[in-house]
């Protein structure tokens, strides 16, 4: 228990130090370590939905969620302290360095590489999540090329495509879209 909590803490300290420019990159990082904390892609989809309903930064919400699923409340506290620790260290030690080199270009240079990479990483996360949540119960996405109709749930695929198009094209509130998807699911997928 203690060792597992410490591993959560250590992993999220690492995530905290690597999350440049906000929580966007949190999701890909969590997916890459999901197996070691026994979190499924469907649970990460739930995290994304819960994050919209719970106030607070996505990184904190994500750390709390993964920590709680893995080791209960001690795990949640360990992961959240971990992801926040870099902010405290920065404020004490590195603030002067950052303030001093603020007008120097190296931070912008680093970001110029990380920002486009983040786009690719999030796209990969979307595929990982989609490949698990769009299948029929008990089906494996590996069979999608052999038997696409038997593997994929048509309703889920339609919800996926419509939500993506409506959100990108018309900027409709994501919470509303999620609730709508839930209502449709309750009637059609039950």
């Amino acid at each position: 228990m203690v060792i597992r909590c410490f591993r959560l803490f250590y992993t999220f300290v690492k995530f905290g130090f690597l999350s440049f420019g906000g929580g966007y990159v949190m999701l890909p990082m969590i997916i890459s370590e999901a197996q070691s904390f026994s979190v499924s892609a469907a649970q990460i989809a739930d995290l994304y939905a819960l994050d919209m309903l719970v106030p607070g930064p996505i990184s904190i919400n994500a750390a709390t969620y993964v920590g709680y699923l893995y080791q209960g409340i001690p795990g949640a506290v360990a992961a959240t302290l971990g992801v926040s620790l870099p902010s405290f260290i920065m404020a004490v030690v590195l603030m002067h360095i950052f303030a001093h080199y603020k007008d120097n270009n190296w931070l912008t240079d680093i970001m110029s590489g990380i920002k486009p990479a983040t786009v690719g990483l999030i796209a990969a996360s979307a595929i990982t999540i989609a490949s698990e949540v769009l299948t029929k119960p008990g089906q494996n996405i590996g069979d999608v090329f052999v038997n696409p109709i038997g593997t994929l749930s048509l309703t889920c695929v339609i919800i996926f495509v419509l939500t993506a198009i409506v959100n990108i094209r018309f900027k409709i509130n994501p919470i509303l879209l999620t609730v709508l998807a839930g209502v449709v699911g309750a009637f059609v997928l039950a």
Partner: protein
Amino acid sequence: MKFKNLSEYINIEEFRKCTALFTTFFKASAFTFGGGLAIIKVIEQDIVEKHKFMSSNEFMEYATLSQTMPGVIAVNCATLVGRHGAGFPGMLAAGIGAILPALVLMIIATILAGKIPQQGPLMGAMRGIRAASAALVASAAFSLGQYNIKTTFSIIMMIAAFLFVAMGDMGVPLIIVISGVVGCVYQSVRRYRERRNSNGD
């Protein structure tokens, strides 16, 4: 035996400052959805106008710094502002204030979500919600791409990161470190060549 006066242990003025910092960031974190940038406007009012910890310019400086530094933006802002406002205790008070509401509310939300029975209409609703979540992650990638993918270099970086993570050859943390280094090297080389070209003409 006689207890010493409490004020001999605690500096009242400092304690008052820490409480103000704690409540400011607690409130901001508890009532701001989506975190990050949205939170900063809410905090500015309290810190600059109500409690007068610093000038508006100083605050904006910290707000900008908290976005460039690695880490959670809201907590970065809290620790920087807290340290300026009331030293090390102030940093702890503000930081914990920013973390606590999200931690507690998310634990409650996770417990409640776990209680949803995985059968019948609710199971169907969950599957619909998950499909929508996956779509929202995809559209997050899309809208981030609209802002950040403008040059050939950024297209290459995006595709390379995607391929490396999809092949499973590299962990995401390593990919981020490498893309930071590549960004640094690429921009230095680009500036060097620009300088050389302008000298050559």
